[in-house]
């Protein structure tokens, strides 16, 4: 538990500098990096779907990123 929380705090620090900035958001012509496919929050949708199904059937938790899934007798 402690380990997990530490991990998350460390991870948040990565983005911390920008979250604190007053000018949140970019102009349309500054979207060059954000427009790259790997910057999509759902990049590699096929892989994400395959993984979600495995964890859905092996753990008590599901969903979060999207709907909780289901429609499967595996859990």
């Amino acid at each position, binding site marked *: 538990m402690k380990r997990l929380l530490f991990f998350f705090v460390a991870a948040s620090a990565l983005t911390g500098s920008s979250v604190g900035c007053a000018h949140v958001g970019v*102009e349309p012509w500054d979207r060059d990096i954000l427009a790259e496919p790997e910057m999509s929050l759902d990049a590699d949708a096929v892989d994400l779907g395959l993984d979600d199904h495995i964890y859905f059937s092996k753990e008590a938790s599901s969903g979060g990123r*999207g709907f909780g899934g289901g429609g499967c007798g595996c859990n």
Partner: protein
Amino acid sequence: MIGQPARDRTLDKRPDGIWRGAFFSMASPCELLARTQRKSTAAKALELVSEEAWRIEAKFSRYRDDSVVAEIHRARGSWVSLDDETNRLLLFAQQVWELSSGSFDITSGVLRRAWSFQPGSAPPDQASVERLLPLIGWSRVEFRPPKIRLPEGMEIDLGGIGKEYAVDRAAELVSNLEGEFLVNFGGDLRAVTQQAHDHSAHGELRSDLSDASTSWADSTSPTGSSSPADSTSPTGATGWTVGVESPAVDDVAIAEIHLASGALATSGDSKRAVVHGGTRYGHVLDPRTGWPVPHAPRSVTVHAPTCVEAGMLATLALLQGENAESFLEEQGFRHWCVR
């Protein structure tokens, strides 16, 4: 040669922060709207767009002695060599002629010799129309790219394509600049939107936020003719809100369209019709008969990916007469018809 037309352009920043450039070309007021931070970007865009409009006007106008069209007419039955751009425009005209079974024909302009749409004028007699018919028909033209030979007495008129072509060309020129633009040449317009990134709020909803959204102000009867484009929607929304004007009443928008992508073009003009002996003769002439297409809408506006497509569809719809709406339904394009 007619004197060089005035080539003035103005650039202003509107209260809503959008740059508006204005100039005159192809017998129409033209404008460029730019949502960009830097004045230099807006100025560059206006320069590109206006120079392109003037270039195309000069090259293809049938009113100018130094145009390619004038050169083809002057050849009086001999072969003329064409440059690449003219070849492409004529090939496009030929393809639309084929697709429309001959109802769109760039040689039909000679009918103007018989038809005058000045107020109070009468329709021509059948004989004077029939005299012109042998001078109409793309099939009579010998077009062997890159050469063309037009039989003597025939004319070609790229007026039905040129303005829309200029809009698409201008839109392409500004597409590399930073910002969002709307190119509007006398009511034929095209939106140039930045390709935004793809970030969905959550995966399974598969929301695709990468693209500007297109939506339509669904007024009860969304019909109308062209018209000047207006500005932006409220904060943050991208794309352009475009007013569609009624052809009957100037400056009254009867529909508002949110244009985020693609182009709008309008064919038709209520001011060009002859009313004689109780019959209204519309200005849409069928090149195969030389007479107005019965029951044609007064104007048709079409939304399509490119302005040339929108313009051709609007023109072809007019030629369908009373079937204009069903024709556009069938083709699956958003449209607004005014009858």
